[in-house]
């Protein structure tokens, strides 16, 4: 504060003092308190997928309600439905041309979303498919491209595009991770929040190479958990009341540092009604996976609400 109080007479000095004090107080005065931030309403602790519906095409297709989505690509080079009750395999003709699929999820209306995975025998069409997200319509069972990420000019350094999927009932949001364009030196992956009705992007977070995704309502709010493609670490990012990706990623734990753990990435995340996480992991190196290669390890963890963290329970090879 510069000196401005220098006049001679007492009254003037007093006036100046008063003025100085006012100026000083104004200059040094505290800012108005910030408006209180209202944290998003915290949902009950638990999974975020209770509302997921079954496809409405099951009955017309002659399938029971005990179906499982099969993207192992062992029997056929495309997604299948396994009817566990009738011991049937089902694939609509529209599913076949799009080739091998990996991650999948469902919305509340029973639409199925599937992300591709690069496999052996890549051709130009299968390369292009890696940058798409596909939707199997709940009524017609037809598979069509639903969303597309930007295909890099040079895809030879990384054959992956769309990869991880998750759904949040609370905000009716679809989450997609993309590795498109990432190179060894530059992590250029993107996490997207999509509108499952239109495919519009509601929010996104750039610079993150994530593979497996899942939404969970924890003690302090809803978070999107994801497995890093480049490290054996699990991270999470907060979702606001509209499901938007907010804040900085939070480190959760490392698979390599768990008892008996390995240096591998989380390829698939599931959480049960009992808040138990099943994490399927594999050594991910941005190269395609061939038949006979995908033997995953399965980690089981429990949610500790008191610490808002995950406690390791066990590890076993996938059967």
């Amino acid at each position, binding site marked *: 504060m510069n000196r401005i109080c220098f006049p001679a007479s007492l009254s003037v000095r007093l006036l100046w003092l008063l003025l100085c004090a006012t100026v000083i107080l104004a200059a040094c005065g505290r800012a108005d308190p910030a408006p209180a931030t209202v944290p998003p309403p915290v949902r009950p602790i638990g999974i975020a997928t209770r509302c997921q519906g079954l496809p409405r095409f099951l009955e017309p297709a002659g399938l029971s309600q005990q179906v499982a989505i099969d993207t192992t690509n062992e029997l056929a080079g495309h997604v299948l439905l396994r009817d566990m009750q009738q011991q049937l395999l089902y694939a609509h003709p529209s599913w076949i041309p799009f080739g091998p699929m990996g991650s999948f999820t469902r919305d509340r209306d029973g639409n199925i979303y599937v992300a591709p995975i690069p496999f052996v*025998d890549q051709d130009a069409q299968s390369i292009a498919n890696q940058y798409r997200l596909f939707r199997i319509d709940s009524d017609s069972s037809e598979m069509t491209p639903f969303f597309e990420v930007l295909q890099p000019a040079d895809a030879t350094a990384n054959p992956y595009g769309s990869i991880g999927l998750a759904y949040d009932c609370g905000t009716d949001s679809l989450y997609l991770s993309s590795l498109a364009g990432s190179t060894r030196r530059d992590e250029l992956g993107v996490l997207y929040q999509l509108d499952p009705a239109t495919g519009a992007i509601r929010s996104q977070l750039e610079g993150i190479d994530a593979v497996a995704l899942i939404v969970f309502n924890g003690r302090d709010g809803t978070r999107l958990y994801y497995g890093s493609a480049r490290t054996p670490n699990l991270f999470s990012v907060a979702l606001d009341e509209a499901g938007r990706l907010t804040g900085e990623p939070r480190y959760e734990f490392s698979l390599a540092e768990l008892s*008996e753990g390995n240096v591998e990435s989380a390829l698939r995340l599931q959480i049960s009604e009992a808040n138990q996480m099943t994490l399927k992991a594999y050594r991910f190196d941005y190269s*395609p996976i*061939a038949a*006979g290669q995908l033997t995953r390890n399965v980690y089981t963890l429990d949610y500790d609400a008191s610490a808002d963290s995950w406690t390791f329970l066990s590890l076993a090879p996938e059967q």
Partner: protein
Amino acid sequence: MSVFLRNPVLFVLLLLIAAACARPPAATPTPDWSPDLAVALAEREAAFSAALEADPPVVRLWEEGLDANQRLAQQVALADRTFTDGTRDPATRRPLRHEVMSIRPALPADLTEKSADCTPATCYHVELYNYALNTTRAAIVNLPDRTVVEVRYLPGIQPDIPEYLVALAIRMAIQAPEVQQALGLEPSADMATMAAMKTALNNTRCERSQHLCIAPTFLQGTRALWVIVDLTEMRIVGTRWTELGQSSAPVILTERTLIDEEVYENYCEQYQAVSRDGWEFQVGLTPSDGLELRDVRWRDKTVIHSVKLVDWHVNYSEQDNFGYNDSTGCPIFGPAVVAAWGVPQIEPLPAGAGFALRQDFRQDLWPQACNYRYEQRLDFYRDGRIGVLAINHGRGCGNDGVYRPIIRLHLTTGSPATQQFQEWDGNAWRTWETEQWQLQAPATPYTREGYQYRLVDSSGNGFALTPGTGRYGNNRGGDNAWSYVTVHHPDRPEGHADLPSLGSCCSDDHRQGPELFQDPPEPLAGQELILWYVPYMKNDDTPGAQYCWAEGIVTDGLVQMLTYPCQASLLLTPLRR
């Protein structure tokens, strides 16, 4: 640049620096351990040799360092046949290397229903590691009863590593030349100060070798030098600096990371220059077209612009036409399914005839079923000949596999305007006027020298081509190869750039992929030409006649891979007037 032209000394110095910085294919150094460390390592090896003669074939923890309970727990555990079952190969009964790694009171986390009555006072946990199979098993020993109440099998899990092994690993790390160089230490003077340097011990994995590994880590300021030590072979795998950083997320380095990064940085992101025995070329790894050599020159004359292996077609059951197109290439960040396993290697040919350049490609689980190992090899002879070989080390998904590697060669005589591609018809050389293909059949004629084709210009310069004919112990019955010649179009997706996949895996006829570039057939006269060579190899698992096959055998307590490689070859012999 003009500075260097004006100053030849500086120019020469620049060339010397560039040559020194170049990373030609590697040779593996052997460290000179100090006498006391050499003795310690020899004693360890002797302990294994002695254990392999014992029953069970297990190296025990030294009893002098154990208390009474630990000694008893070890004794009871190793007397239990259930616990020691698996210390011998089930097929041959040969002993496998095992070592007791830890003996401690059982913790609650160790116990299950079977051992529910145990307490830390009454029960001990004994851990046994199988070096041959990289597996761990643990026994819960009830000391008062002197019984093993439970045995747990922990495949792929690394055990707790005993202190003496940790100490050995640290001594090896300290004495390794690459570590001393990285830390900037004098070999003798500074070793005494190493104890004062902060050292951590990090978990790591040796995923490629499936060996037991540990990583002593030396901290210097804001960096840490990881040294991965292989405790199965007692050798240094590699080193790498990491930044300690502020993030709470840990950094883990492994054998695979080190190997893959060395390969990627030196051969995927750049090509390396090789100059030897009159030969010069650039060598690198492609995303999915294997190892590529560019600008191959012999005595300063370019003879090959590019040679690479685009795909391996693998066909099971020739009736059902089921199979894969396997691509080989960079180990990370690329579409290759069978990745480069280490950097290219150079080795001399017998009798000083020249040298061979070899690149190994493997899947991690080879030789388990449906895992593959391929090898690209080029033999460079001092007399100007080049052997281009495609080698398959098995194992694949079955014993009815047919393998067809797609080799692409951009050959040149140096005079494309006058060069011609010709086949020997039994009496004379016949020129191919347009793009075409041909099958090497039993009745195919060869010249007296064994030539089937030649690329020759108007001066008589060029190459004669000899396919594998099964005469010299390679590829039983011959290569039975499809050969195609196409015009070189660098602007089209015809192999000048990386080709993700070419053709069908499982055609029995000429439709192997290169024919796609011959529709319609173009005239060859005056053009740069591409030769595609697609030989045939059929695997065989018949005992005593294995071919394109692999299996593991137990030797000295460890599993060694025995391969029965099959190879196809094309020999290029220089022609000159």
